[in-house]
């Protein structure tokens, strides 16, 4: 598993190595080259997804195949332009993407771009909550494990981290639902808020669709409490998975820095052990952690798809699962491409942040 965790860091390194030039480039140059590298990545992903989705036929036949007669189908396929040569459609698709047009969902006729806009915020909000859980749990526990290396707390924490990784996020979610929704019913187990909250939210003028922000803006604290209560279980389910990864990362890197001589010299100057671990050794260990985080956010987006389905959290993942069931592949393609672009951009941002922090990252 350690490779599963360390490889994302390698991924970032590898991408940057691909543009390795004779040294001497500044930060600005690095950021520019790294930014230009996103373009082929996104291009390949879109191309890949487009052609893979079309191998088995056009989306209209896939969605409505059994329900319409052959003549009706042919007419609709023709109207949507799916009977033209695939390359023509491909270039049209690329052109539309550049204009921000992701196509129109076959099943409910909604433009995919408005689906992305309406439900994207919920997913980002969930990932944000989960990241908080992951940080709160993962980083201090990782410090603890590194400090007590090879002793009982370390062994226990390592096993816990592996367990966190081995539990599929939807199963963790179902267990949480069972425990806190049925056996000990203290927390809501479905949705982003009660019906009342959803009603109030739908009335918000100029909504950001981040319920946390919207609730604060209208200054309704009972709604805010409700929103937060609904977020607890999904955030834990998704966050624990990532917390395990953070724990291991912090542990591995801290073990390295704790061995450094400056830590010993700090100890000889009488700096408290707590401060040594949390400040002196931790800060330099942060850089590899930040690099890996980019990949973790990508993993979390995939995890969010499953978490949202488990908790009926109406975000992109929930919609993706819905459209998958409806066999609406235009919407599926739109959401997948959008998520892939987000992942690529996140990886870019993380690399840039790492380059800002660590002057050694320059190519």
């Amino acid at each position: 598993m350690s490779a599963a965790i360390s490889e994302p860091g390698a991924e970032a390194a590898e991408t940057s190595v691909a543009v390795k030039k004779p040294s001497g480039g500044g930060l600005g140059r690095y950021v520019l080259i790294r930014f230009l590298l996103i373009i082929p990545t996104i291009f390949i992903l879109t191309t890949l997804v487009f052609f893979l989705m079309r191998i088995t036929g056009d989306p209209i036949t896939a969605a409505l195949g059994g329900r319409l007669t052959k003549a009706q189908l042919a007419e609709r396929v023709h109207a949507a332009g799916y009977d033209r040569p695939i390359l023509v459609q491909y270039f049209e698709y690329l052109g539309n993407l550049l204009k921000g047009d992701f196509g129109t969902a076959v099943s409910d006729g909604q433009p995919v771009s408005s689906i992305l806009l309406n439900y994207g915020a919920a997913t980002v909000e969930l990932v944000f909550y989960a990241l908080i859980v992951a940080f709160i749990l993962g980083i201090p526990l990782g410090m603890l494990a590194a400090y007590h290396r090879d002793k009982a707390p370390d062994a226990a924490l390592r096993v816990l981290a592996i367990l966190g990784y081995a539990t599929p996020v939807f199963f963790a979610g179902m267990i949480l639902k069972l425990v806190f929704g049925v056996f000990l019913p203290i927390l809501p187990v479905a949705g982003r808020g009660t019906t009342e909250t959803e009603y109030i939210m739908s009335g918000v003028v100029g909504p950001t669709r981040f319920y946390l922000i919207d609730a604060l803006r209208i200054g309704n604290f009972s709604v805010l409490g409700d929103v937060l209560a609904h977020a607890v279980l999904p955030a834990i389910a998704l966050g624990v998975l990532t917390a395990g990864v953070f724990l291991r990362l912090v542990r591995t890197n801290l073990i390295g820095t704790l061995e450094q001589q400056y830590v010993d010299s700090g100890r000889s100057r009488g700096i408290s052990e707590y401060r040594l671990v949390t400040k002196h050794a931790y800060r330099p260990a942060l850089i590899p952690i930040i690099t890996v985080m980019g990949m973790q956010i990508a993993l979390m987006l995939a995890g969010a798809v499953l978490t949202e389905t488990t908790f009926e959290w109406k975000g992109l993942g929930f919609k993706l699962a819905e459209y998958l069931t409806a066999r609406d592949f235009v919407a599926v393609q739109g959401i997948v491409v959008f998520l892939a672009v987000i992942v690529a951009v996140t990886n870019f941002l993380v690399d840039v942040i790492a380059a800002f922090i660590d002057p050694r990252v320059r190519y």
Partner: protein
Amino acid sequence: MSTSDNPQNQGPAEEAQTFAEEAPGSGVPAVAFDDRAKKSWFSRLPIISHLRQSVGLQRGMLITGLVLCGIVLICAIFAPLIAPYGFNQLGTSEGNFGSKLPPGGTHIWGTTVGGYDVFSRVVWGAQTAVAVIVVAVVMSIFAGVILGLVSGYIGGWLDRILVVIADAVYAFPTLLLALVMSIAISGGQSSAWGGIAAAAFSITVVFIPQYFRVVRAETLRLKAEPFVESAIVLGASKTRIISKHIFRNATRTLPLIFTLNSSEAILTLAGLGFLGFGIEPTSASEWGYDLNKALPDVTSGVWWTAVFPGVAIVLTVLGITLVGESMNDLNDPRLRVRRKAKVKNVKPAEVTA
């Protein structure tokens, strides 16, 4: 591309020690010592040799992992003997089992909403999981290793294109790619073995880049080794150098990546099943699919339809991960706890990750 971009790449040189321990100089490929090594071929097999080296907590982890994997394998192989009912059996000659029966009596783990026996489906699920993982990982190793060897050794534009594609695919969230693949393969529908094949093939495509990257990086490193140069001087063909000299050295870490990937493959399979891309209950049993069907039960307090398949996934992944973890630690001399050494903490030379 440098070889130091992946911690795995540091492995082989160091692992060479474990294969030819008496030999001085860890950077020398162990292949050169193969015929001189005194140990039998059996004790040099990946897991056996790891078991022999391990000690203390590490050994405990390795053995726990092996036992868990063993249980899953036994369930998979002997599913027809262990499971009291078929995976798609709804009743006996005396009538149907009934829906949502609590655990106990003739159904030790209860029955599902659809009226299947939970215990039987969990046992049969092991068969599906093992089949999918073996097919997927073997196919991706095959494709990934060949592409990596060729790309790394020959280089040029082919190499550049493959690297860019592999990087793009690698950055794609596993589950989403597997989803797209399974739509491409089966149009999102699952037939009998078609479902299993689609799942396996989707996972294959996801994992090819991982093997590709590791093997390619290793190949690049080995290409500059003196023994490859001397083979070139002796007039060996490219095919021979790749298949004989580089292949055996570049694939040393594969057992490790194999275990790491298998656990991810199980999670991906379960995720696919959970999103409704699994295998229909009539064609095979799949844990993720069962969890999907169990989702509405949970809120009404029917726990057994979710807990048992879920625990099966957790234990399987746990078993594989424990084996992989221990192998990783044992392959890395910095993390290995030595049997004879009195020093408790082996000093790490540098930071991984």
